[in-house]
């Protein structure tokens, strides 16, 4: 089973009542206040991380409406358990793990075994790119920004889950490779492999729109 799995956030973390020293985390002050029940501090944390959490949820669920509902569940769970958060990771990493669990529960509920398998299986065989046509230098000569966004979103949604999540966090959300690894509980080398395969697959999926023979 991959590390992008279904474990509920570390149970000891949820139950613990004593926090240790915060790790270096830009959210630290707000987390400490939220742990004392300060709703405004928690609201700031929600604002800071809503885009990240939304993209993680869309990447797993492939459904914007369901991602919005799961986002609400994620933040409600986070508030419920925040007093037990013990700084073993950055707050955002902890939040992403709650979001992943919320999404996986929904996949199970809808009996989406294909997506569940894709999330939980290990690496598969070698993937080699298939398209070798040159691409246009400026796609905006051929498509509007809205069209490009639509084409890219459709392409990303066609990737299998383990590639989709990594491409979403690295290339769309623009986290660093090590940060993606931390957020997903993967090794940096596993992220590198998934990222390269995901990028090559996405390139093949986008080629019909952006290669020179296409327009």
């Amino acid at each position, binding site marked *: 089973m991959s590390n992008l799995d279904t474990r509920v956030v570390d149970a000891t973390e949820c139950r613990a009542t004593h926090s240790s020293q915060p790790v270096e985390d830009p959210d630290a002050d707000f987390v400490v206040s939220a742990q004392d029940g300060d709703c405004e501090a928690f609201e700031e944390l929600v604002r800071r991380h809503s885009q990240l959490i939304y993209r993680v949820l*869309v990447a797993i669920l492939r459904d914007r409406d369901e991602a919005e509902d799961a986002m609400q569940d994620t933040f409600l769970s986070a508030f419920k358990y925040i007093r037990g958060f013990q700084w073993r990771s950055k707050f955002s990493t902890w939040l992403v793990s709650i979001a992943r669990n919320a999404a996986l529960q929904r996949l199970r509920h809808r009996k989406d075994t294909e997506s569940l398998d894709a999330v939980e299986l290990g690496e598969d065989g070698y993937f080699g790119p298939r398209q*070798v046509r040159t691409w246009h230098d400026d796609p905006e000569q051929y498509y509007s920004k809205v069209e490009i966004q639509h084409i890219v979103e459709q392409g990303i949604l066609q990737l299998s889950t383990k590639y989709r999540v990594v491409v979403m966090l690295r290339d769309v959300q623009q986290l660093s490779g090590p940060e993606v690894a931390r957020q997903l509980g993967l090794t940096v080398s596993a992220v590198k492999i998934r990222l390269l395969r995901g990028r090559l697959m996405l390139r093949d999926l986008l080629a019909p729109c952006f290669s020179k023979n296409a327009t």
Partner: protein
Amino acid sequence: MMTCEEFFAEFGDYLENRVSPELRMELEQHRRHCRECDVLFDSTSKAIKIVSESNSFDLPQNVSAQIIERVMAKLKSGPK
């Protein structure tokens, strides 16, 4: 000169700009002599740029505000 297989082994790091200057020179030399690898690098770089600049799956401000409002309303009304 490096083979296509050797080029592909370094491809991920090359895309991420994480190769030494010496290795970069070798990779670029290979690209000058191999059209397929040159197109592969150029098109994959362009795909990454398109994806990065696409604002894909942007959470609209109004949707974000509604979700935050719902979450905070539940937190303030529900049991702690």
